[in-house]
C-alpha cells in the first residue's frame, strides 16, 4: 500500500500547483499537478500549468491524482507533455502517478504507452511511474536516463521485457515493483535475465521489489554477474523466505554490497542474523511476516491491490 504523497522529489520540496498562484518558484520547489474528488478537470489544470510562462524553468514535475473516477488513463497527459516539449527543456525528473491508496488503489491507476517520452525529453534523468495497468514503455533508448522506477501492484511481463532490453547506458538506479500475478504481474524470472547479466554498465542500485518470486530472484541474483557492480540490492516488499536468504548468505559478492534491503519478508531470524554478520554496512530486515494461517501458508507481496 502506498500511504503517503511525495514530500520531496528530485531533491526539492513538492508543493501542489495552485492555478491562482501560478508557477511562482520554479527553481525552489517541485510542482505536483493533481486533482481530487469534485476537483477541477485534470487536463485543463495541466493545460493551465503548461501555459504558465515560467514552466520553461521547471526541472521536475510530479503528476498526482488525475482521474478520481478511475475511468481514464495517462494517454492525454503524455500527449500534453510531449506537445509542450519545447517549453520543458529543463525537465530532468518526471513522476507519473504520485497517488496514495487513499486517493486510488495502485491497481486502478491506468497508465498508457509512454514511449513517446523518450524522444521528446532527451535530457530526462529520472522517470518514475506508479501503476502497471495499461503501461507500456515501447522501445527504450535514452542517453541520459539515470533512474527508472516502475511502481506497481502487478508489472506486466511485457514491460519487464521492455526494460530488460532497453538501451540505457547511464542507468544507475533501476527499481521494478513486480507485484502479484493476480494484478497483472505475470513476469517470470527469465524475463529479468538480461538485467542480471549486467546489461546496464553503470547500474549501482537494483530493486526487484514486491515480488512473489523473490526467492528465485535472490537465488539468481546471488550468482549473477550484475552483483559485482551493485552497491545496493533491494528485494523488499516481496515474499523472500529462507530459500532466497540462504542463497544470499552463501554468495561471497553479497557481502560486498553497501546496502541490502529486504524489509517485508518471510525469512527466519536465524538467517537474518547470518545476513547481518556478512558485514554489509546497511541491512534493512524490518517488518518480518508470518505466512497467513487462514490461507494455507500463503505469502503476500506488500503492494498489489
Amino acid at each position: 500500500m502506498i500511504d503517503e504523497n511525495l514530500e520531496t522529489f528530485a531533491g526539492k520540496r513538492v508543493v501542489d500547483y495552485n492555478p491562482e498562484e501560478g508557477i511562482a518558484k520554479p527553481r525552489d520547489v517541485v510542482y505536483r499537478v493533481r486533482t481530487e474528488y469534485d476537483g477541477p478537470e485534470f487536463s485543463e489544470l495541466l493545460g493551465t500549468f503548461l501555459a504558465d510562462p515560467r514552466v520553461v524553468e521547471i526541472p521536475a514535475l510530479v503528476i498526482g491524482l488525475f482521474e478520481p473516477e478511475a475511468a481514464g488513463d495517462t494517454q492525454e497527459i503524455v500527449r500534453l507533455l510531449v506537445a509542450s516539449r519545447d517549453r520543458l527543456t529543463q525537465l530532468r525528473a518526471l513522476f507519473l502517478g504520485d497517488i496514495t491508496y487513499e486517493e486510488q488503489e495502485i491497481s486502478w491507476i491506468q497508465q498508457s504507452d509512454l514511449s513517446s517520452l523518450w524522444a521528446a525529453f532527451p535530457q530526462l534523468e529520472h522517470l518514475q511511474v506508479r501503476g502497471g495497468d495499461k503501461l507500456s514503455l515501447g522501445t527504450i533508448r535514452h542517453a541520459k536516463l539515470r533512474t527508472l522506477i516502475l511502481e506497481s501492484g502487478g508489472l506486466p511481463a511485457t514491460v519487464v521485457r521492455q526494460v530488460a532490453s532497453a538501451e540505457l547506458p547511464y542507468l544507475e538506479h533501476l527499481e521494478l515493483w513486480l507485484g502479484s500475478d493476480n494484478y497483472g504481474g505475470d513476469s517470470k524470472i527469465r524475463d529479468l535475465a538480461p538485467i542480471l547479466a549486467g546489461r546496464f554498465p553503470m547500474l549501482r542500485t537494483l530493486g526487484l521489489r514486491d515480488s512473489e518470486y523473490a526467492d528465485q530472484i535472490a537465488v539468481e541474483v546471488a550468482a549473477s554477474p550484475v552483483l559485482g557492480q551493485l552497491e545496493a540490492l533491494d528485494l523488499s516488499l516481496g515474499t523472500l523466505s529462507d530459500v532466497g536468504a540462504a542463497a544470499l548468505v552463501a554468495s561471497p559478492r553479497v557481502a560486498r554490497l553497501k546496502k541490502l534491503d529486504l524489509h517485508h519478508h518471510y525469512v527466519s531470524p536465524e538467517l537474518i542474523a547470518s545476513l547481518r554478520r556478512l558485514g554489509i554496512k546497511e541491512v534493512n530486515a524490518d517488518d518480518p511476516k508470518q505466512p497467513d494461517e487462514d490461507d494455507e501458508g500463503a505469502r503476500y507481496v506488500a503492494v498489489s491491490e
Partner: protein
Amino acid sequence: MILLGNPGNPGDSRVDLFQAALRARDLPPAEVIAYEDLLAGRVDLAAVLRRGSLLRIESPGRNPAVERALLARGAEAAAEDGSPGVDRASALRLPVDRGRILYPRQWYLGFRSLLFEILEITDRLDGTVTFTSHPADIAEMFDKRLCHSRLQAAGVRVPKALPAVHGYEELRSRMREAGLSRVFVKLNHGSSASGVVALATAPGRQLAWTTVEMVSDPLRLYNSRRLRRYEAESEVAALIDALAPHGVHTEAWVPKAGLDGAVCDLRLVTIGGRPEQTVLRLSRGPLTNLHLLNRRADPALLRSRMTAGAWESVLATCRQVAAQYPRTLHLGIDLAVRVGFRDHAVLEVNAFGDLLHGVQADGRDTYASEVACLTPAA
C-alpha cells in the same frame, strides 16, 4: 458525584482513572453505580440521585453481562422496527462470542432506552441533577446518521453522506446518483471501528477494505484485528447486505493525508468546549481508528505539514462541534486532514472518546482536565 460505569471490569480502567483524577484534586471519590446492577434493578437510581448530584455516565462497553442486559432491554423496540435481533430471554442467555457483531441496532435501542429513563428520573427531580455528558447527547452520538446531520446542518465540515440504504444494490445506485465512487459504510450504531467498510468503486469493479470477517453457514460477522480486502462483487455484496439490516451510515471516503509512511487522522478531545488532548493516529490501511493495528504519533508531526491557518481551522471545527453539544463536557472527535494538508473533515464524534492512555495537554490527561473543568474554583 455519581458515576455510572463498569467498576472492576477486566481490561476497562475508565472508572478507576476517573476516581484517580478526583483523588489527585483532593476531591472525594464518586459513588459508583454498576451498569449491571442498574439494569438488573438492584439499584434505585432515583433514590441515589434524590440528594441532588452530578452524574457521570461512563461507557457501558465490553462487559458481557451489561451487553446482554442492554440487548434484552432493546428486544421489543428492535422487533418493532424490524431490526435483526433476539427476544429478551434469548438475549440474556447469549454466550460470549468474542468479536461477533451481534445486533448493534438492538443494543443501541436498549442503551437509548436506559439513557432516556435516566433523563426521566432526573427530570422528575427538578433540575437538581446535572450531567457531565447529557443522556440525549450520548444517545445522539451513538447514532452516526443523526450526529452527522446535526453537524452538517450546523455548517461543520463533514463528508457528504448518502441516505440510508438497505443493501448493496441500493448502495451502488445511491453512490452513482450522488457521484460518489468511494465511500465509508459504517454501522450506524457501531462503536469505534466495528463494522466499518471502506469501499472503492469504478465502472465494473469494486474493492472493500474492512476488519469485518464473514464466517459462513449461517453467515456471521466478526470484528477482527486484521484488515481484509474483498474484491469479488459477490463477496462485497454479501458483506454490505449483511451489515445494512442493522442500519448503516454511508459517507464519502475523505482521502486522508499520509505521514511517516502511513495514513493519519486525529482524535481530539474537547473539554468544556475547547480542544485539549490530541492524538495523531497512523495506520497502514484506510481504517485509522483501530486501536490494535495502528500507532500513535505526536500531532506536531502533522501540524508541521500544515499552515498555521489550516491547523487553526481544525481547532475551530472542534470548537464548532463542541458548541453543538453544550450540555456535554467532553467529546472525542475523529477528524481527517485531507490529502494536501489544507482541508479537513469530521469523521465521527464519540461520547466516550476520552480514554487516551498516556496523552496529555498542558501536563494533564483527559480525566484531570475534565475534573479541573468541573471544579474551576478548587
